[in-house]
């Protein structure tokens, strides 16, 4: 086979391979949505995060506005401290907004949903969301349900 | 470094073992310069190993392998590289590089060892191919050649750098009479015309004896004898005699060791 054709074919092969990697990176893994460039950090405390993981999305009104960056155990308050990076454009979150841990779909990826509050002052870098709702744990739900049925039968 | 001594290759007390077998046990072999020397012996006696020892593909356990005064197995990379420029080897099957054309095969040593221009390389290649009679096959690929032609191209490649020493590993095996004749003629011609020393390893008695000036007969890791072909024919040593005359029975027995024939036959009822 002629050297020129050979080299072209090989070059093409390598290009296709690298392209495949790029396609995987951008289209399959959603790499383009990467926080870290112009975000601000806020945190919140939850009694039970039940399966929330770092890199989980943070949404408001269903729209992704940020990511969970870190989850730690707070030794003094015995709660989970969840740190989130919010997109810099979304800087009009009232300081009394509430954060809840919700489940997406039946197979249950956990994510953080923020519902809007009413205050005039906005959340800034380093602020804390006070009003939180922990994740729903199935056993507690069942327990509550059984309890309510029992009390109804009184 | 050339030496004008009488012997171009000098093996001194060389011992070589492989896989528990002793192939050479303290042998001394001297190859006279400028002549065709044949190395003969029964199959498996280590003739090819000898060539590999001279070419530094193998290292002896003990002893010296001197080529032009240099102890080949102990040479460093650079020196070995230069020493190889002076040796050509024709392998049993030709060993042409199958992915290169005839031209590229012959040009290969030139490209490795020299920095000649393309024109010069082309001229030299054509010269070498002309010497072996295959200049017209310049552009063919090895798989388009017959066995005899492959060997001739390999020969052209072996002389590409005008070495002083040419080694032939079983060149006559499986050749038809014509290619045999061609090869025999070429070996002698090249040796004389180019002033080379040729070492021909073979067990083909007639052909080798017809062109060799000197012969070594090797068996069982030892040199049985050496001398001019006619001398060896008249040798007193029974083993040399048996080999040179092709006698089926002698020191190398015809019968594989077995018990007495009559006993063996009479025991047929007792076979398990």
């Amino acid at each position: 086979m002629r050297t020129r054709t050979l080299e072209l074919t090989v070059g093409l092969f390598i290009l296709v391979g690298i392209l495949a990697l790029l396609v995987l990176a951008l289209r399959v893994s959603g790499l383009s949505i990467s926080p870290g460039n112009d975000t601000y950090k806020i945190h919140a405390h939850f009694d039970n995060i039940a399966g929330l993981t770092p890199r989980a999305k943070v949404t408001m009104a269903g729209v992704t506005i940020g990511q969970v960056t870190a989850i730690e155990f707070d030794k003094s308050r015995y709660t989970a401290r969840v740190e989130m990076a919010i997109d810099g454009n979304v800087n009009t979150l009232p300081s009394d907004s509430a954060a809840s841990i919700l489940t997406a779909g039946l197979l249950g990826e956990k994510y953080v949903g923020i519902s809007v509050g009413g205050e005039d002052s906005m959340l800034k870098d380093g602020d804390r969301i006070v009003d939180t709702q922990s994740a729903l744990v199935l056993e507690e739900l069942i327990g509550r349900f059984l309890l309510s049925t029992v009390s109804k039968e009184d | 470094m050339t030496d004008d001594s009488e012997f171009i290759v000098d093996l001194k007390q060389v011992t070589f073992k492989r896989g528990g077998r002793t192939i050479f046990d303290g042998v001394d072999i001297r190859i006279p310069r400028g002549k065709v020397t044949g190395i003969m012996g029964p199959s498996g006696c280590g003739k090819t190993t000898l060539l590999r020892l001279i070419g530094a593909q193998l290292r002896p356990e003990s002893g010296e392998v001197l080529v032009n005064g240099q102890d080949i197995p102990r040479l460093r990379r650079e020196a070995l590289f230069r020493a190889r420029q002076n040796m050509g080897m024709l392998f049993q099957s030709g060993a042409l590089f199958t992915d290169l054309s005839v031209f590229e095969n012959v040009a290969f040593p030139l490209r490795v060892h020299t920095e000649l221009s393309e024109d010069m390389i082309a001229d030299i290649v054509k010269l070498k191919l002309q010497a072996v009679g295959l200049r017209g096959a310049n552009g063919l690929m090895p798989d388009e050649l017959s066995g005899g032609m492959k060997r001739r191209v390999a020969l052209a490649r072996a002389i590409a750098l005008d070495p002083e020493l040419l080694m032939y590993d079983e060149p006559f095996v499986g050749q038809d009479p014509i290619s045999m004749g061609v090869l025999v003629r070429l070996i002698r011609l090249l040796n004389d015309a180019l002033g080379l020393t040729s070492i021909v390893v073979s067990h083909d008695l007639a052909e080798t004896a017809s062109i060799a000036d000197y012969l070594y007969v090797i068996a069982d890791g030892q040199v049985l004898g050496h001398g001019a072909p006619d001398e060896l024919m008249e040798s007193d040593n029974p083993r040399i005699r048996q080999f040179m005359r092709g006698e089926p029975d002698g020191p190398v027995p015809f019968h594989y060791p077995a018990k007495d024939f009559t006993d063996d036959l009479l025991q047929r009822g007792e076979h398990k």
Partner: protein
Amino acid sequence: MKTLSDRIALMGASGLDVVAALGRSGVFLFHALLGRSNFGSGWNLFVKQLYAVGVLSLAIIIVSGLFIGMVLALQGYNILSTYGSEQAVGQMVALTLLRELGPVVTALLFAGRAGSALTAEIGLMKATEQLSGLEMIGVDPLKYVIAPRLWAGFVSMPLLAMIFCVVGIWGGAMVAVDWLGVYAGSYWSNMQNSVEFGSDIINGLIKAVAFAFVVTWIAVFQGYDCEPTSEGISRATTRTVVYASLAVLGLDFILTALMF
């Protein structure tokens, strides 16, 4: 009649043989990859081998990738629909391919197609004394013949694995979206949400690189080390496929345990 002690001795001997072969292959690899070459446009040789080993394997990789992706989508859909989670088929196909099937199947196919070809080619060169011929001319066959093939394998197999994954995901999309009626948006967005570049794609790539190293090394060594007869070559080719496949599967287990 072999006694028990004879048999045990034989086992020990073959165990020693294996260790000796392993040692030889280590030295072999060292000399092939490191140290100066004394001749050669290594680049041209490398490109030629990339073609032989990489480009020519494209056909089988693409076809297999396509079919495996499609089957994954099909089976995945069946299983997930019992939980009402058909929308997750995208992430299932993608994660399975990226983490496991992509690198492993590519490596197995590569061992069978390119690996056995390498072994046979090098074995044939050994049997026809071309390797000795190179040595006599003063060219180190490890640098001239073996090294380009090693590098070609190291480079092309990971690329092939990536191509395999992409083709598989696309095939899965074809089946899931066009045939089974999964909503295109959910296929891709669920996938994007659950596939992480760092832990899934990069780890898959790391696996592919590790497999490439092992498969190519085994293929090339078996060819170099084989007995220079036609029987020897065919035995070496079989050994390449078997050893390489076992090595890939074993390595896969170890890497998965370490990474995931």
